[in-house]
């Protein structure tokens, strides 16, 4: 059967079509891929069909900072199906100011080869 994807690797958003065959046990065989402007597009579609992955951007509580939250993201994407598990882990974290961009909040999130890192500097709040 034919499946259509919009690649998300770069702003081009190439429309890629893949002819696939569903095998037993949920496995998918890719018969052909076309429409990608570059190899990354093909790789993306293969990944999407076999094991879709996503990055997450969210926030972590900060105590004593000039802002109450530090934005965080993952250093590498994780399986799409585990987004909410990841959110549950991230929600448990609290940092104390000052916080620097790049700081690792959770190492090897959910056992994957990805860290949750801070993406924003949060200086200490001098007033309080």
């Amino acid at each position, binding site marked *: 059967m034919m499946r259509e*994807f*919009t*690649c*998300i690797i*770069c*702003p081009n*958003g190439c*429309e890629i079509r893949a002819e696939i065959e569903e095998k037993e046990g949920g496995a998918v065989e890719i018969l052909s891929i076309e429409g990608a402007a570059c190899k990354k597009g093909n790789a993306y579609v293969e990944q999407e069909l076999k094991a879709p992955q*996503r*990055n*997450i*951007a*969210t*926030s972590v*509580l900060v105590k004593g900072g*000039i*802002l*109450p*939250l530090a*934005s*965080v*993201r993952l250093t590498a994407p994780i399986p*799409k199906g585990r*987004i*909410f598990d990841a*959110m549950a882990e991230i929600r448990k974290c609290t940092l104390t100011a000052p916080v620097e*961009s790049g700081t690792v909040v959770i190492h090897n999130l959910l056992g994957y080869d990805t860290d949750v890192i801070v*993406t*924003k*500097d949060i200086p200490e709040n001098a007033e309080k």
Partner: protein
Amino acid sequence: MDGQMDKKTCSQINGIRTEAVDVVIVGGGPAGLAAAVELYHKGIHDILIVEREKQLGGILRQCIHDGFGLTRFCTTLSGPEYAKRFIDEVEELKIPYITDAAVLEVTDAKLVTAATRDGLRQWQAKSVILTMGCRERTRGALGIPGERPTGVFTAGVAQAYINLYNTMPAREVVILGSGDIGMIMARRLTLEGAHVQAVFEIQPYPSGLPRNIEQCLNDYGIPLYLSHTVTAIHGGKRLTGVTISRVDEHFKPIPGTEKEYSCDTLILSVGLIPENELSLDAGVALDGRTKGAVVDEYFQTNVPGIFAAGNVLHVHDLVDFVSMEAENLADSAAEYIRDKSLPDCPVEIKTDRNINHTVPQRISGTRGFKLSMRVNRPMKDCRIVVRQDGVEIAAKKMKKAIPAEMIQMEIKPEKLKTSGNLEVCVE
């Protein structure tokens, strides 16, 4: 609080101590930051960035999702990280900036006044760079009928509440507008436990980038309904629901297609408007199509020495292009400071019905430049053609052209002449 500031030559204007400075940059977001760094590299050091927030970074401070810097840094960064690259350079180069300072006025004589906790500050600048960004179109501006309960937020406001203020404004959500911000918020709200029921878009095509439809809507099973809009808002105190109707090709609601959606939050992602109130006060002429200034290839407005770039000039999709545009502007501003003027740009750029607008709107014809534009509706397999006096001077083949994506073309100098208007058409 001041960044690094040296003692400057002062005078008294309007009874306020006034400092002389070469360049004042109004707004320390991505455009202002890029302009500042580039100006410095071009040898103009007497700069001052005036930022009204407590920190530099502009709207990027609340855009915590990634996708920034793909073309510029060949990596995907969050908004704050992208801003930090420039902020770090500003700090390293010791470029002067001031935060917690709201510019109240810019005059055509390039006198800039700002309110700070230490008093009014005033600067007599040789050149002013306008990089104030934009505001969001509101429910009131759209004139959506019905009651006016709380629970109706523009997407940027909801984003600020969640990402900066640690406040959750929503539980059951309907989103109007498939612009990027709306779709980003669909995902953000879902991740934080709200239930986004649907996204409605009045156009027959989505207005945001395809990858956001993929990552923000499809991933979470949030349906997108094209050719639909909100035709009534209900609730005397907090929102209780909205009425959704299908629209025809003239965007008029089709009677009989009304559906009621119970919800406590309506998120509006229905357009950005360049924030040009200060520009108007300075006598800067605006383009009715972009709502931003009319500029030439030097990004100079009709007021000599006043320049504009970034979202305040025309709404961008990618911050990478904002930075590039601001850097081009900075090169011109540096030239202006040195030569005290810039060449005339009498050649006008006109468009056909398919093109909504171009930036710049005027050129000199003496050198190459980058032409930015947006099409009015989605088109496939077309050619964008630029002619001068009927002679084709540049063309770009596009497999797909959509209003959501700004199109840019390098116009080479070889075929350009200094007289005869340019025409940009789609064929």
